[in-house]
């Protein structure tokens, strides 16, 4: 369980990360989704990606390394091709030993919006255009088709990954002066934004619906549309609040919550709710 510490023990800023470590993390960022799962999505992969940096930053203080690893294992999901942007900013905050709540909030606020941007760049633009052209070359029997596809796609991908890493790491370092001069106010504002984004995620990423119907002659009563009439995305909101309550007030561990959801899911699947 994540501990409730809000500050690192050693508040002295670490040496800025060198180019080699940053590059190493760009390479690791390819495997962001290695341990993808439904609960925390890319969380453990995210931690894996930034570990080389964290080890450098908190190398002198094992307790701080543990703290950092714990809070970087919380829910994380962003666009896999744009993740180095979040990495750069978070690492610059870690390097300055910023307040943990601030790092968490900045991380959450940065990861959300990237999803839509990445989809637009890669899946709606780059792949359809490149694949459209090269697929016809392949159908014509040319081996250049797949080769060209790989070269273009990965050329763009790596350029973006490396550029975002160095750019956002610098950006984070520059913004830090303003932050530290008004640390308490900044932490509060960042938390506000973080909570706001989690609220948006609850609707945007919450897709749970039920297909329960009550037989009523010609026009069956569809429960989901009644729920939507009261409040759209009511189920995602209710479930999030329920789980929040169970964890905060009843001290449930995430594992218990997952087991509960699996039972709900399978029983619901059996009786035809989902």
């Amino acid at each position, binding site marked *: 369980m994540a501990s409730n510490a809000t500050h690192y023990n050693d508040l002295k800023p670490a040496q800025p990360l060198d180019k080699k470590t940053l590059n190493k993390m760009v390479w690791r960022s390819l495997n962001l989704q290695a341990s993808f*799962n439904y609960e925390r999505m890319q969380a453990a992969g995210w931690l894996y990606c930034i570990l080389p940096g964290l080890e450098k930053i908190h190398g002198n203080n094992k307790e701080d390394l543990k703290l950092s690893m*714990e809070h970087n294992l919380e829910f994380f999901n962003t666009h896999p091709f744009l993740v180095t942007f979040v990495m750069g900013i978070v690492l610059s905050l870690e390097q300055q030993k910023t307040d943990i709540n601030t790092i968490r909030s900045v991380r959450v606020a940065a990861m959300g919006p990237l999803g839509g941007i990445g989809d637009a760049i890669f899946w709606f633009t780059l*792949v359809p255009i490149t694949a459209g052209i090269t697929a016809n070359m392949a159908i014509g029997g040319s081996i250049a088709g797949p080769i060209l596809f790989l070269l273009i796609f990965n050329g763009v991908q790596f350029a973006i990954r490396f550029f975002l890493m160095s750019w956002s790491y610098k950006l984070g370092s520059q913004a830090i002066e303003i932050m530290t001069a008004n640390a308490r106010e900044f932490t509060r504002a960042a938390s506000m934004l973080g909570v706001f984004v989690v609220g948006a995620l609850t609707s945007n990423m919450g897709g749970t619906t039920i297909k329960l119907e009550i037989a009523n002659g010609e026009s069956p009563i569809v429960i989901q549309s009644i729920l939507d009439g009261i409040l759209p995305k009511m189920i995602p909101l209710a479930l999030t609040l329920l789980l929040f309550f169970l964890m905060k007030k009843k001290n449930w561990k995430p594992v218990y919550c997952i087991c509960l959801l699996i039972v709900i899911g399978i029983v619901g*699947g059996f009786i035809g709710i989902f």
Partner: protein
Amino acid sequence: MQFNAIQIILVAVWAFIVGIDQFDFLESLYQPIVTGAVIGAILGDLQTGLVVGGTYQLMAIGNMPVGGAQPPNAVIGGVMAAVFAVASGLETEQAVALAFPFAVMGQYFVTLLFTAMSPMMSAADKLAEKGDTKGIVRLNYLAMGILGVLFAIVCVGGLLGGSALGTTLQEFSDKYQWFMDGLGAAGGMMRFVGFATLLRIMLSNDLWGFYFAGFAIAVIMDSIEATAKSTLLLTAFIGIAIAMYDFQTRVAIRQNAGSGNGGGDEDGI
């Protein structure tokens, strides 16, 4: 068509690689256009592989893994379509249709793995508590390895069992559809545990309003077609404006309070 041992091993290796590649590595090797050519080359008919791969790619363009939604697994679809086209000389459309049950099976394995990896996160928490960096690295590689092996098994199964196995798989998956539906629904709900964990730490009592405000704005944008794709970006704009306003106001208040109470430097002029 009979396959020799080397061909079977090479297909298994490629299936292992692209099984992982669909989420990691280059995230482009798995595309049918590449996979078709590779499988064609392995089975000794590069030309057919290229044609099948290209055709399937055009079919799959409208089927990208957008926003984390899973397509009927294009990875196994690509491998098996190429296998069937090369081995049985089928047209691409027919080969893709024969590959379908295997693609469904591959998707089931992905769902199962993503579900099974969720409780594993508690083990990851323990590793983090101990500061075990190597453990975290191993956990990630292990999960990648399992995914690759599962995909290799499905593809080798398809190679040896052919379309007959496909029919059996289809019947099996139809029969247990409710189970996978339920598991899929549970998978879709598990992210709420992740959200709740974040809120548990971030949400002090005076911030509740912002949680509901973010939710409300996202609900509105999600339901408008023109803004649905950029919901998170647009909500972030609004959130940033609110947060910046709060930041600037509070900084100003503190600075004024400082000069008023204590008689700051300016007062001494």
